């Protein structure tokens, strides 16, 4: 198979686009695609101060690397959930990338803050670890933006993440979640930061290839709590269909984007932290209160030296 651009031997076949590309042209293709998605969907503007939510996986590390490379200087935020044999390795990969892109990363350590890891917190909340994880991540990532002055939070959700979540919501007709997914969720003054997903239309396979070709050292192992996640089953099913009908996942998500409705804004906020809430306290403040925690969230900062906050390109 030959590269459609230069005619050299291709490294990756992109069936959804009916094309094949060599290493160099694939990297250029994906970066241009993300840049045009950011522009077309108005995800970031020149006045924004974005930050990337980083897990140590291929998508978030690649997004952090790519955004800095294509001209969107951004720092990162990492949440250490104290998962044995997983969180420490993830953090090492995140720090390694911070050194590479020469950007700051804020680290929130759950155990240092509440003296429990995510499994302990999940038991306290009587929820599955994945549910507790989602809640604490959404909260902490919003907090770092509000406290440190970042205007947009970018996450590494890819096409397969979104398509599988959408399939799950349709299969079980979760109406309350079904129309809340979007490539961009608006912020709400000092309460909620704008959230964007620049990789929304990039497949998981494309993102893994991008990480491999750029030598991005990501955590390959699965989170030990995701073993029975339905997400993986949905992704496998969607990929079976994608093999028969290339481009199906993109059509599925693009069709959804045309139908998605605006999220209803709340006008009710947590009296303790200002986060949107259904009662007096938001879910996280209720848990912190139950645990007797009164202090504010503390972020540690990891800054590579020398740090150049205006740097626009990475090598």
């Amino acid at each position, binding site marked *: 198979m030959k590269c459609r651009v230069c005619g050299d031997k291709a490294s990756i076949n992109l069936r959804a686009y009916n094309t094949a590309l060599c290493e160099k042209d694939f990297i250029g293709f994906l970066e241009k695609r993300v840049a045009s998605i950011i522009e077309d969907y108005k995800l970031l503007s020149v006045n924004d101060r974005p930050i990337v939510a980083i897990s140590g996986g291929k998508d978030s590390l690649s997004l952090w690397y790519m955004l800095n490379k294509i001209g969107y200087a951004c720092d990162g935020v990492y949440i250490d959930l104290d998962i044995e044999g997983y969180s420490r390795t993830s953090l090492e990969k995140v720090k390694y990338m911070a050194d590479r892109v020469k950007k700051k990363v804020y680290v929130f350590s759950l155990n240092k803050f509440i003296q429990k890891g995510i499994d302990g917190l999940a038991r306290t909340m009587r929820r599955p670890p*994945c549910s507790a*994880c989602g809640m604490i991540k959404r909260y902490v990532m919003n907090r770092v933006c509000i406290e440190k002055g970042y205007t947009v939070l970018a996450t590494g959700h890819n096409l397969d993440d979104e398509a599988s979540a959408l399939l799950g919501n349709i299969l079980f007709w979760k109406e309350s979640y079904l129309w809340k997914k979007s490539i961009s969720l608006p912020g709400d003054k000092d309460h909620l930061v704008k959230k964007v997903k620049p990789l929304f239309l990039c497949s*998981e396979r494309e993102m*893994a290839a991008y990480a491999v070709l750029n030598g991005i050292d990501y955590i390959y192992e699965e989170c030990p709590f*995701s073993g029975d996640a339905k997400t*993986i089953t949905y992704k496998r099913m969607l*990929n*079976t269909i994608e093999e028969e009908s290339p481009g199906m996942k993109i059509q599925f998500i693009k069709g959804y984007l045309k139908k998605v409705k605006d999220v209803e804004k709340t006008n009710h906020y947590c009296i303790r932290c200002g986060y949107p809430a259904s009662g007096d306290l938001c879910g996280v403040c209720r848990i912190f209160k139950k645990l007797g925690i009164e202090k504010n969230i503390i972020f540690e900062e990891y800054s590579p030296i020398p740090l150049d906050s205006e740097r626009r390109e990475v090598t």
Partner: protein
Amino acid sequence: MKVHVDDKVYEFNKAMAVSRLLQELSLSKEAHLVLVNNRLVTEDHRLSVNDEVKVIRVISGG
């Protein structure tokens, strides 16, 4: 050829295309990438018996 898939190693003693290898291992080409001697290759790439092959799972859950 030696084929590494996660923490397992498989041995194949015949040349074949990458697509055939994925079929033999019952792996989806949408959900896997194949590196041959550390280079990413397409499914029509012909593998030789001396190749060092690594299959990368691209799906993650959670």
